């Protein structure tokens, strides 16, 4: 591109957003790491300074030692990863046939069906989770319908259980699964399937040998887009889960707002970050590979 003035605005276009992200996205992680190495004190701000009065570096690994030796925290991390994993799998099981059905519809229907997938995403996440509180309640719609049908004689407890958390997670993150799946299934050439069947493949063989490999980029992207944020989810376990529901996002929130232990909350965040850093790097690798593919 151009010289002189051209270079200046290019430099500007890179530098301004870059600086913004360095200050407001990257720097906070350095600070969180720093505070996770401090001791909590009753003061403003409520943690010991990085460098003490004698100009010595005052760092402690006490928070991490505590977290890694406390069974409840370990269990919570494990449980968060497990629940996010199960929710991801459920999203895939529901989302794959849906994306497949949408991709196989006529263009007019397809547009409408996609719109209906995207629409809930534009409506407040909090209100959509709240809507489930009304449905799952002991006197809510689902219990009333089941009792009216005679399936059950008395309300079953769904709200404030792990089942409610799973429902909330699948409900909230389903569009993130369907859209990338649809994008890869839409590109699938139907002639390939016909060819496979003409050559004597059973529908099942055709699925695993033709559809699945072609859909895999969508599957990977969808699973990562669901799994990573679901691991640290706060609102869903808080509103739909019971008081003893073990999700790390909720523990972090309470550690910070209820116990006011900033250093421990920071350490909780750092370990959560370490748990999801591998999937995040995978997602990024994967997306830049997709972009390179799209460019050529």
């Amino acid at each position: 591109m151009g010289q002189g003035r051209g270079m200046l605005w290019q430099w500007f276009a890179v530098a301004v957003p870059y600086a913004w992200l360095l200050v407001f996205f990257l720097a906070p992680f350095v600070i969180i790491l720093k505070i996770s190495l401090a001791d909590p004190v009753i003061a403003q701000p409520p943690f010991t300074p990085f460098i003490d009065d004698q100009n010595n570096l005052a760092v402690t690994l006490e928070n991490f030692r505590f977290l890694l030796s406390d069974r409840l925290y370990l269990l919570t991390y494990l449980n968060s990863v497990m629940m996010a994993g199960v929710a991801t799998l459920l999203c895939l099981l529901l989302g794959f046939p849906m994306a497949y059905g949408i991709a196989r519809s006529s263009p007019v229907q397809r547009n409408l069906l996609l719109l209906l997938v995207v629409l809930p995403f534009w409506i407040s996440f909090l209100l959509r989770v709240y809507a489930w509180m009304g449905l799952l309640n002991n006197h809510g719609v689902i219990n009333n319908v089941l009792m009216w049908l005679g399936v059950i004689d008395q309300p079953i407890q769904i709200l404030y259980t792990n089942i409610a958390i799973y429902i909330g997670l699948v409900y909230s993150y389903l569009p993130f699964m369907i859209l990338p799946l649809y994008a890869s299934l839409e590109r699938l050439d139907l002639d390939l399937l016909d060819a496979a069947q003409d050559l004597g493949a059973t529908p099942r063989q055709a699925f695993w040998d033709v559809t699945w490999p072609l859909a895999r980029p969508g599957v990977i992207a969808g699973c990562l887009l669901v799994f990573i944020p679901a691991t640290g989810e706060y609102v869903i376990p808080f509103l739909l889960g019971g008081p003893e529901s073990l999700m790390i996002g909720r523990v972090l929130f309470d550690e910070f707002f209820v116990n006011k232990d900033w250093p421990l909350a920071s350490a909780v965040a750092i370990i959560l970050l370490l748990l999801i850093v591998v999937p995040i790097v995978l997602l990024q690798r994967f997306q830049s590979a997709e972009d390179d593919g799209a460019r050529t």
Partner: protein
Amino acid sequence: MNNKRSPFIFSVLAFGYAFLYIPLVSVIVYSFNDSRLATVWGGFSTRWYGELLRNDQVLDAALLSLRIAVTTATFATILGTMLGLVLARFGNFRGRTLLTGMITSPLVMPEVITGLSLLLLFVSLHGLFGWPATRGFSTITIAHITFAMAYVTVIVRSRLAAMDQSLEEAAMDLGCRPLRVVFDITIPLIAPAMISGWLLAFTLSLDDLVISSFVSGPGASTLPMLIFSKVRLGVTPDINALASIIILLVSLGVVAAWLVSRRMQKSLPSN
């Protein structure tokens, strides 16, 4: 062509869409419930809508949320469009990997981490420079711009990647300066993507609860924060009314945008 849907696919689609829409419909139905016990039907009434409109707390919070969302969307669109251009058109440069990382990560980063880390940044900045003196509008807006611009970047960048570069190249060959090419050719072409980006940033900002809760100070309560403080103990009828209004407004907006974009696509010659 095999255009028929199998009964299995059809039932999954039916189940999936019922799953997505039954909660929304049930909230709207119950918002017209006269009973104070939000889960027991007590006859048709619109009284919760009346109470909602007389509730100053709700109106103040809604106004604050709208102000934050408009500011966020505007700045996020400017910064995100710049980044989209940089990533799609500038080729390789030093620090590109870090930049793409800082764009991808906010999209999936659990909100508790983003919120906590930004609050700690603001507290540290306050300790060092005395800024921000209070937490509220400005800190929430900065936090929202940071994650919303990542979404705008993705939208603008994918639009640019799918776009033919020949117009830009032709203008350049005819001696147009690069900056004029951007403003006279590229930006008009990506305007639809910028509008989608603005709307998405606006919605994300309006919706955000967790990050706002962290970076807000005493006294500044956005609409989601107010709703959350009301519903944390259970279903309440006035929130049903508020939710119904939001669901209807957003649905109308999304469907209208969809119809407009479809008409625009039809009027354009397809390539």
